[in-house]
């Protein structure tokens, strides 16, 4: 992507994110858009976002792709990998070439090898007052370190995620960060369950199921997590989520 073209898209992405932050937004939806922007703006082949739960365990909250291998690579990092290191050190972790990785993170390295699609990995912390609350993960199919400018942009996107998590329903009395993290993580559980219900009932793959859920929520200005809850509770029929259609622009 050329310089001016990218600058324009960066601008658009932040305007879109800022717009979202003004409204009564859904955190899962916001984080999902954000990993989409990461892939788009940083030429990544996959991106994901992990947040720490109350037990200090990293949990997947958003991924640019539903494919099993990407999901696996992200989830594995609850135990080891660049994301966990980024979270623990509150710093950026650059792995320009996977060859360097096996000694540091044998299980993660083996999984990347198996996946076959990625050659370099970067992790960027979600920072808050000197601590990290999670990490953003970027996967590239080509080896090489990301330029500083890209890392800075990645950090800016990670900071937007942090702000989004912090301010969601922040007006509610007495609400604090840990609770917002918990809400995001709990929402993710319900969204995944709802995807399963929709996939089963309508015979769709997971990403298409997620798309139905998201488009229904957006079109009606409802929270993704609330729509998901109704699907899981049987209050909303998957067939009522609308017909097959093109993916809505992000």
């Amino acid at each position, binding site marked *: 992507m050329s310089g001016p073209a990218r600058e324009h898209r960066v601008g658009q992405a932040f305007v879109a994110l800022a717009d979202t932050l003004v409204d009564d937004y859904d955190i899962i939806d916001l984080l999902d858009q954000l990993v989409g922007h990461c892939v788009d703006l940083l030429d990544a082949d996959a991106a994901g976002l992990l947040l*720490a*739960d*109350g*037990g*200090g*365990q990293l*949990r*997947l909250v958003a991924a640019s792709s539903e494919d*099993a291998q990407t*999901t696996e690579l992200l*989830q594995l990092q*609850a*135990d080891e990998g660049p994301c966990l290191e980024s*979270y*623990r050190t*509150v710093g950026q972790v650059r792995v320009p070439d996977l060859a360097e990785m096996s000694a540091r993170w044998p299980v993660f390295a083996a999984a990347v090898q198996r996946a076959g699609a990625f050659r370099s990995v970067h992790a960027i912390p979600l920072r808050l007052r000197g*601590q*990290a609350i999670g990490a953003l993960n970027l996967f590239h199919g080509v080896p090489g370190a990301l330029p500083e400018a890209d890392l800075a942009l990645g950090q800016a996107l990670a900071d937007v995620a942090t702000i989004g998590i912090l301010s969601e329903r922040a007006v509610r009395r*007495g609400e*604090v960060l*840990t*609770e917002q993290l*918990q*809400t995001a*993580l*709990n929402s*993710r*559980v*319900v969204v*995944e*369950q*709802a*995807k*399963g*219900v*929709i*996939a*089963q*009932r309508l015979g769709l793959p*997971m990403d298409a199921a997620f798309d139905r859920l998201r488009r229904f929520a957006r079109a009606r200005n409802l929270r993704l997590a609330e729509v*998901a*809850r109704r699907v*899981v*509770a049987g209050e909303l029929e*998957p067939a009522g989520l609308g017909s097959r259609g093109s993916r809505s622009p992000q």
Partner: protein
Amino acid sequence: MAELGTVTRALLGMVRDGDDERALAGRICRACVDGLDVDGAAISLFTAHDSRQTLWATDAVAELLEELQFALGQGACMEAATTGRPVLVADVHRPADTVRWPIFAAAVVDQTPVRALFALPLQWGAVNLGVLDLYRATPGGLSDPQWRDARGAVDTAALMILGLRTDPDAGVDGAGGWLDHTTGHRAEIHQATGMVLAQLGIGPTDALARLRGHAFAHQRPLIDVARDVVARRMVFTEDMI
């Protein structure tokens, strides 16, 4: 990274030893009293039939707090249970803190030495498993580290209770183990739970129990069974184990 709190660590380190829900609730409550500078704790759970039941209270005051809420149909714990959000009351003598349940607050002031009250929901996705109630005889909120620890503790406790409730072999001492933190939060397991829920027309907790039951009966890791379901290599039917 923030250090894990005392109670969270204690819960993560607990070994399965054939506890039933009541015994487990007791261990969780005692860990909270030991580590959070509170005077008492209680756990009330929702049973499969949606009724609430106090499983454990560390002392008579904690028990009375639960009873008052059941009797009056209102209170901090009731609110936490309904909304799925924590309710923190630094001082029950301050009317501003208790406007949403004045009758309960009056009864607490009248009949108990309780000054501060913290009701924390035990949640798994949209499923509300129950509420952990903590009280102090002196006014004052939880400090930041205590609050973090309390959140970590309820997070862990919820997974322990869910693990017990969906245990495929509850009769054998600790056979099914806990739902460990890593496995318990995998996306594929939630997706498979949703699919099994739709296949059998049951709730999420029962669907997870079926997945765990199958994994246990066939001596396979839960995550593998979940992946088979998501990949449609396996469909659950009423009569299968």
